[in-house]
C-alpha cells in the first residue's frame, strides 16, 4: 500500500525534499514505516529520527493524517494515508 510522507523543517532541509510516496506491505504499522524510511535514507534521516541506541527520537512528532499519535508506533496504517514527521523548532 502507498503512504505519502511529509517532512518538515530540519528533516526537509536534511533530505532536500518535503514529501515522498512510500510502498509498504498491507497491515504495516507506523514502526514498520519508520524502519523502511531508515533503510531508504540511512545517513540523512538517522541523526534526526534515531537516538544513540537506535531508538526512535521523541523530539520528532509523528502525525497520521492531522492527528499526532504520541509515542505509539503500533498505529496501523491504511492505504493512501498521509504521515507527517515534524521536527520540533524554536525561536530566535
Amino acid at each position, binding site marked *: 500500500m502507498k503512504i505519502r510522507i511529509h517532512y*518538515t*523543517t530540519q528533516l526537509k532541509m536534511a533530505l532536500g525534499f518535503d514529501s515522498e510516496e512510500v510502498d509498504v506491505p498491507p497491515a504495516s504499522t507506523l514502526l514498520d514505516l519508520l524502519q523502511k524510511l531508515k533503510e531508504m535514507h540511512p545517513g540523512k534521516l538517522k*541523526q*534526526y529520527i534515531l537516538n544513540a541506541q537506535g531508538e526512535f527520537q521523541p*523530539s520528532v512528532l509523528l502525525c497520521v493524517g*492531522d492527528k499526532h499519535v504520541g509515542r505509539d508506533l503500533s498505529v496501523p496504517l491504511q492505504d493512501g494515508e498521509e504521515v*507527517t514527521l515534524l521536527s520540533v523548532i524554536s*525561536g530566535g
Partner: protein
Amino acid sequence: MIDDKRPDPESSELTDEERATYEWQMWVPDFGEVGQQRLKNASVLVTRCGGLGSVVAYELAAAGIGKLVLAHAGQVKHSDLNRQLLMTHAGLGKSRVESARRRLLELNPRLQIETVAENVTEQNVQSLVSQADVVVDCAPLFEERLLLNQEVVAQRKPMVDCAMYELEAHLTTIIPGRSPCLKCLYPQPPQVWRREFPVFGAVSGMVGCLGAMEAIKIIARFGDILAGKLVTCNLRDMTFRTMTIQRDIHCSLCADIHP
C-alpha cells in the same frame, strides 16, 4: 469558547483616550469593552524579544495590554535586524530590552514594561513567570523552552508557544491540566539543532502575530484557543494545517494534574 468562569479581578475602567484608541477592536463581537478592560488589567511575559517576541510584544502593546515583562539578554547585533522589529540600526551595540522598551513606549506610552536583561534560567524562571498572567515562549534554546514549560505547569499558567524555521512556523497553547505540555510533546531537546538557522522576518512576524492573538483570546476569554492543537504553517506554499496533539499520560511533569 474559553471556559473561564473566574470573576474578573478588581479592574480599572478605561479612560476616554483608551476608548478612542481601541475603538475598532472593541467592535469585535465577544470582545467589547469588557475584553479591553481584561487586557488593560493583564500582564504577559515574553521571553525573548527577538524575531518572534518583538512582534508578540508590539502587537500586545498595540492592543492595549496593561503590562509586559520582557526577558532578553545581550546587545543588538546586525544579524538581529532582519527580523527583530523592536531593534533598530541606531540601537546597534545597545541593550536589546532597552531598545524594545523605547519602541514599545513610542507606540503605547500607557504600557507598563518590566525589562530583565537576562534570558530564562533556572535562577530567574520562577520570578519571571510569577509576574505574568500569560507567558509567550519565543526562546531559541530548547532548554529555556522546557524550563518555562516546567514553571508554567507548576504555577498553572497558560503559555503560548511560538516557533519558526526557514519558511515554516509552529504554534500551540499550553493550558496546564487541560492540554499537553511541551514535555508531553518532546521530553528532551532534539539531539540535532543549530542555534542559528535560516528564517525570514516575515515568517517570524507572521507567527508572532498569531501568538499575540492567542494571548489576547486567552486574556479576554473569547474565541477558540489552540489547547491540544498545533498549527503548522508553510509559507513556501501557504499551507496551514491544524493537528490535534496528544498528551503523554505518563508525563513526569503534568500527568498528575489532569482530571
